[in-house]
């Protein structure tokens, strides 16, 4: 009997009652559920009321029947909470939402809705000077979202399959209520439904990203961060993320194509170039972070001067771009400029790597930091007075002409499919091709003899040597490949930003890209993964860009955020399976249960 009950969570989802423990607040589960449904529904309804009387608060929360600004976020949160609640009740047609945990995603979403609502109410009160500025709608939303959270904490908590002990103590029980069982094996669906699901997921990702990048004022962006901050773990607890990753493994090419199409669709959702310019910067930053992930995530070489290679690529492209102030008065076609940027970066990678890679660990970090600064200072001094005039010193190389492919000028707006694509949209689409290329390079080199050797060196260099791996040569290869990828991104960067300037390639700066932010993007997002650095880079670019009112405290908050992340999620936002197991003792759970090969039989 005991084995029966422990096996149920993995094998079937028919008996969710067997995998739950009493909730935090002693309420009968039935009444907790009803209260939660009422709370979610009324919170949802309250967003259609006016929350404040004046349009002085951004987003116009004054119109009844038409949610705006932060109200939309509360609405989304409440709606999702309601859907997951009903799914947990086993309502037909919604069960697919919660293949894993049922109540922990509800609790997380309820908390997210509550946090967004109270943040909105608080922001109104602070901004407009007092609670008196709240209309009844605002009060109702605050009360109902509080009710929702209380009811959600009273819901019985899910129990993961490997941890059936009831937790003791309030804090432990609170933590416990966020845990959820892994979803069981999905029933096979027709292939076209699976493909549609992947497409829908990519579309949803595009919508979330577009909304986040298009947030017009700081409060809305903070609200967006709060809701996604609670929503993402909720999706993970509900088992949807696991389901999606299983699907995406099954249809690898479809997923990659869908993600690429979704990313390419972004400029078509924009009416002006305001946010595509942000997007192209994110894309460049993210691409360089993926390149750095080869060096840091795979080969385990801590490179604190990586931005120098971006600079080498950018300067090379600027010198051969035909800019009026460029010392070389030549103009290469773009493909040749990219090639030149890549090759020169690679050469610099080898030149810098050959001496520095003889030291290990902390010493390597310091030496690369030094070389990164040497690059910037050298660019500053090659100005004709303290050295040969190559880079115009602190003036940089401005007014790089826009790229032209045949008669297609990337600097001019073009109308494609009825949408006018501006200059930055053009560069965004160009950069996307390079991003795709660099992701392919990362993935393919990871899953090969070379990639395994890099990971082996990261794990134990001496043992790797004893396995016949020439560790110096392979480390140099990783370093040079990383430099090449950064150089390619740099050539596009030079054109997007109209010019190059030595101060763009510092070790640390309040604006990305710089070496510290690049490394942070990799670590924040997750070392050794592709999506990790992409998400990390997007966050690290958007947060300083959107929240300019806290520019003075930005690095402080950034530091605190990194400390907290290292304490609670050292493997980064997107965990590489290997990294996750390294940091969290989880026994034998590493054996893939949904292995497509079918060779793994843990039961055998």
């Amino acid at each position, binding site marked *: 009997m005991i084995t029966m009950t422990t096996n149920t969570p993995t094998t079937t989802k028919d008996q969710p009652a067997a995998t739950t423990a009493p909730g935090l607040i002693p309420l009968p589960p039935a009444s907790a559920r009803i209260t939660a449904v009422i709370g979610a529904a009324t919170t949802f309804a309250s967003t259609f009321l006016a929350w404040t009387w004046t349009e002085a608060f951004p987003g116009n929360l004054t119109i009844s029947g038409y949610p705006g600004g932060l109200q939309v976020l509360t609405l989304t949160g409440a709606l999702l909470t309601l859907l997951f609640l009903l799914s947990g009740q086993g309502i037909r047609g919604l069960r697919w939402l919660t293949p894993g945990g049922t109540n922990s995603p509800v609790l997380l979403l309820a908390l997210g809705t509550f946090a967004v609502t109270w943040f909105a109410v608080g922001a109104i009160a602070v901004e407009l000077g007092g609670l008196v500025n709240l209309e009844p709608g605002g009060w109702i939303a605050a009360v109902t979202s509080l009710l929702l959270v209380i009811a959600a904490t009273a819901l019985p908590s899910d129990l993961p399959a490997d941890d059936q002990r009831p937790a003791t103590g309030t804090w432990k029980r609170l933590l416990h209520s966020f845990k959820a069982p892994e979803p069981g094996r999905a029933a096979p669906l027709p292939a076209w439904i699976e493909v549609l699901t992947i497409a829908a997921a990519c579309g949803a990702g595009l919508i979330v990203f577009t909304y986040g990048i298009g947030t017009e004022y700081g409060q809305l962006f903070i609200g967006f961060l709060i809701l996604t901050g609670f929503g993402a773990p909720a999706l993970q607890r509900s088992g949807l993320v696991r389901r999606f990753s299983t699907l995406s493994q099954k249809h690898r090419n479809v997923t990659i194509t869908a993600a690429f199409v979704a990313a390419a669709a972004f400029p078509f959702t924009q009416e002006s170039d305001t946010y595509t310019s942000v997007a192209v910067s994110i894309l460049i930053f993210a691409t360089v972070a993926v390149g750095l992930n080869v060096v840091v995530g795979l080969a385990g070489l801590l490179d604190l001067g990586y931005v120098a290679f971006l600079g080498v690529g950018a300067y090379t492209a600027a010198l051969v771009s035909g800019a009026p102030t460029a010392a070389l008065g030549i103009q290469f076609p773009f493909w040749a400029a990219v090639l030149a940027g890549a090759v020169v970066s690679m050469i610099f990678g080898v030149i810098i790597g050959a001496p520095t890679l003889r030291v290990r660990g902390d010493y390597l970090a310091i030496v690369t930091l030094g070389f990164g600064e040497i690059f910037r200072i050298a660019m500053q001094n090659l100005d004709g007075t303290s050295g040969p005039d190559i880079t115009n010193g602190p003036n940089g190389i401005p007014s790089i002409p826009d790229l032209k492919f045949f008669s297609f000028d990337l600097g001019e707006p073009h109308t494609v499919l009825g949408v006018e694509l501006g200059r930055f949209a053009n560069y965004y689409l160009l950069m996307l091709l390079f991003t795709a290329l660099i992701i392919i390079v990362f993935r393919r080199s990871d899953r090969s*003899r070379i990639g*395994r050797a890099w*990971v082996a060196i990261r794990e134990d260099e001496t043992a790797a040597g*004893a*396995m016949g*791996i020439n560790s110096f040569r392979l480390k140099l290869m990783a370093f040079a490949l990383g430099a090449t990828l950064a150089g390619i991104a740099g050539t596009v960067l030079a054109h997007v930003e109209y010019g190059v300037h030595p101060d763009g390639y510092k070790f640390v700066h309040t604006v990305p890209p710089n070496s510290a932010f690049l490394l942070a993007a990799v670590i924040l997002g997750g070392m050794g993964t592709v999506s990790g650095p992409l998400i990390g880079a997007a966050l690290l670019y958007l947060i300083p860009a959107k929240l300019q009112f806290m520019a003075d405290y930005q690095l402080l908050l950034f530091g605190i955020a990194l400390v907290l992340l290292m304490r609670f999620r050292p493997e980064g936002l997107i965990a590489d399976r290997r*990294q996750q197991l390294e940091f969290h003792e989880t026994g*034998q759970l*590493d054996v893939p249960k949904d292995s497509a090969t079918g*060779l793994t039989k843990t039961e055998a």
Partner: protein
Amino acid sequence: MTTATPTPPAAEAQPAATVLSATGVTMRFGGLTAVQNVDLTVNSGEIVGLIGPNGAGKTTFFNCLTGLYTPTEGTVSYKDKVLPHKSHLVTQAGVARTFQNIRLFANMTVLENVLVGRHTRTKEGLLSALLRGPGFRRAENQSEQRAMELLEFTGLAAKRDHLARNLPYGEQRKLEIARALASDPGLLLLDEPTAGMNPQETRATQDLVFAIRDQGTAVLVIEHDMRFIFNLCDRVAVLVQGRKLVEGTPDVVQSDERVVAAYLGTPYEGDTSAETAPEDGPEDTTGTTSTKDTEGGTA
């Protein structure tokens, strides 16, 4: 020595080719001479043991053989070619090793660990990894096939997707051997393969080493477990304080007074007083038991 052991000395009958020959290997760390003028040969199809008290220089000698250390004097050659002092070139030449303290790639899967061992026997570079031509796929498939063969051989095939760090101790030792074998070595160096193992696991390791020998790989093994060594080896060398004391068949080594003295100590030679008398007692008995065993073995 109660356990019956298969001791097939079949290889000795043939004229054995020398696989490894170390001549005059000396390793000095500053003023300390860890290994002094040690000669050792390993012939093909042979299992050679290297024993000695703690600190005798066994592992240092191993490190000299495998290029981790550059010996102060002396040369090491494998199949008549002098080995370079770079560990990856030594492995490339055909000498693979395991470590005294397990040094697996802890956060790689069992299969990946063995695939890393294939590194020297495959040559698909970065470019072919990026282009993913048919040659690359073929090489990857072949590597995986060979790795799975080795996992079957060591009995780890069922755990191919486990992380190395999650294996129990005995299986980690086996995996280290499988990883070393993946480089298709002509000589395998095992540094204390049974340290920390229970008698059953030791027996299993013994059978594994015999199986490796039968596949045509010569084995040089460091071990403290005397029963294991004397059951296993065709020839045993004893290293004491950096010098080779004795070399010979297990019988010869077991009955050598100096070996016993090195392990158990000798009475202070200048002292003839009665104090040493009690210590002579146990030493004598050990001597006699080993002689008995030798007689039993030869009879």
